[in-house]
């Protein structure tokens, strides 16, 4: 069986695309840096202007790495949700996991007014935002998990997820109503999504969490493939359903929680990337899908970020708006082209 070779060419293509889009991403920005200088900065760490060196190493490269982490993490989360729920429309966003993370952060930022200014400084550290966001997403996921035990119908589960989205939005509205303009602005800027402003140290935590999650996930690839036939068949082939379900849900909430904490609730990537990848590679095998979804997610996020920073201008658009403008048409196009969307 020559299964491996058929995926080689598109995989190489993805690799080349990733490097290209990464390079385009760091070469464009509000300050114009010639590409020759950029090479010097990247490989020799010198340039004719000290500020360029600083911009590249402390702004552009961290931001591009964030884009890669966010894109691949959300893509994989979406893929896992789609397989676990056997529903092509599932994703971290649709199931209310992102809403949960938003709620966690909203309670932290907007609620800090109630706690008092003494704790304020401590509360609003990026560390606590991460924790609040992870707790929020984990909470919603556990409730969805309980709901799944009671309800077998996957459509109902999706609706429950949407309802959680509404409930979170409502609570956030109430909190917003009672909080001051400064905190409100802080929360709204967080909810726009942002890939910038991460220190190298924060990037370290970010990438370590994602790497560990993906490493644990590798042990479940076989079970995920078994799940393609539904839970009963999977169980009859020796798949440990309970273990797989918990691993997938904990990993997804961890990844979504961390991503949402560091970059805000990024829409659509989690839903669109797995479908785009499945269309490109025409497969349901998670051995192939997990690495290619990660690559595709990273590329798409880099492109979205390049557009969002509006090259050679001072404006930076909210990344969330760009991913939706980019992602929604992809999903519509897929539905029209395929008539059918597969998990």
């Amino acid at each position, binding site marked *: *069986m020559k299964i491996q070779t058929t995926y080689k060419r598109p995989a190489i293509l993805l690799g080349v695309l990733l490097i290209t889009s990464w390079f385009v991403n760091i070469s464009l920005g509000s300050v114009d840096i010639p590409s020759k200088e950029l090479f010097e900065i990247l490989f020799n760490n010198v340039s004719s202007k000290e500020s360029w060196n600083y911009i590249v190493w402390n702004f552009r490269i961290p931001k591009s790495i964030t884009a890669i982490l966010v894109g691949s993490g959300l893509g994989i989360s979406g893929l896992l949700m789609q397989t676990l729920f*056997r529903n*092509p429309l599932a994703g971290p966003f649709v199931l209310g996991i992102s809403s949960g993370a938003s709620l966690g952060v909203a309670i932290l930022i907007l609620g800090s007014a109630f706690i008092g200014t003494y704790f304020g400084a401590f509360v609003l550290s990026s560390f606590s935002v991460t924790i609040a966001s992870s707790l929020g997403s984990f909470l919603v996921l556990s409730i969805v998990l309980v709901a799944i035990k009671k309800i077998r119908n996957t459509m109902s589960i999706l609706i429950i997820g949407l309802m959680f989205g509404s409930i979170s939005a409502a609570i956030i509205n109430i909190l917003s109503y009672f909080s001051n303009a400064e905190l409100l602005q802080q929360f709204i800027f967080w909810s726009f999504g942002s890939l910038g402003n991460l220190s190298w140290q924060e990037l370290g935590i970010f990438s370590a969490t994602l790497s560990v999650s993906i490493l644990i996930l*590798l*042990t479940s*690839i*076989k079970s995920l*493939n*078994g799940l*393609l*036939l*539904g839970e*009963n*068949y999977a*169980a*009859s*082939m*020796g*798949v*440990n359903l309970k273990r797989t379900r918990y691993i997938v849900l904990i990993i997804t909430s961890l990844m979504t929680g961390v991503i949402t904490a560091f970059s805000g609730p990024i829409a659509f990537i989690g839903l669109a990337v797995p479908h785009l990848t*499945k269309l490109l590679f*025409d*497969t*349901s*095998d998670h*051995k192939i899908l997990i690495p290619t979804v990660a690559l595709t997610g990273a590329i798409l996020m880099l492109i979205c970020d390049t557009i969002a920073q509006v090259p050679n201008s001072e404006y930076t658009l909210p990344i969330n708006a760009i991913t939706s403008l980019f992602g929604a048409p992809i999903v519509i196009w897929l539905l029209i082209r395929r008539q*059918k*969307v*597969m*998990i």
Partner: protein
Amino acid sequence: MESNSKHIVLRTKNLAIGYSDKSSTTYIAQELNITLEKGKLVCLLGKNGIGKSTLLRTLSKTQHKLEGDILIDEENLLKITPARLAQKMSLVLTEKTPENQLTVYELIALGRQPYTDWLGRLSKEDIQKVNQAIELVQIEHIANKKNYELSDGQLQKVMIARALAQDTDIIILDEPTAHLDLHHKIEVFKILQDLVNKTDKTIILSTHEVNLALQLADELWLMTENKFTSGTTESLIESKDLEKLFPKDKIYFNSELKQFTLKK
């Protein structure tokens, strides 16, 4: 070494099946005592709602038993881990599989999961078993198709091949011929009969195709309201148990033709 004395693959002792929750227990059938030898084609017959699926689900550990014991190869089912059970028993279910992009080959290869490494990579032996399963069910011509391109009849054969690739002594099929036309019903039955003869597997299936089952099964299991009986077609005709399968107002068992006929 080769003992031809009875190899009992499945035995139940005073098995009771049904459903239970905190407040109540609903018995569907009780006092089931089954002894099944290796290499038999067993057809489970009974009218709708009598508990055929419940029995099959209980035997395959998909559902909990209420009382009694189930022994697979004389080992208590409770003590067999899911991973080991997957090497002893495979299933063909009535449920539709979720939509996916698996090819027929990939789908059948999933049946090798109980044997593959942690990533699910196929060894030489795995590939050979998959090819053998494809050959036995005669679906070579559709092996590279996507599973969503298949007709119901083809899909059923693919699911049987997947169970075969799992290489278990027992294969349990829940109504494998539902939704199929007469031609494909007979084809599926013939394939299963062929498999029992060629591979010495034990196949247990539930079906509403009573007349086909009477002709092809090595052993029949009859479920009626208050009784579970098993035996060959001949012995069940003789004991007049077959007559009790359905209410007698519309059809009756014609023991000369060996089939059920409409009352005129």
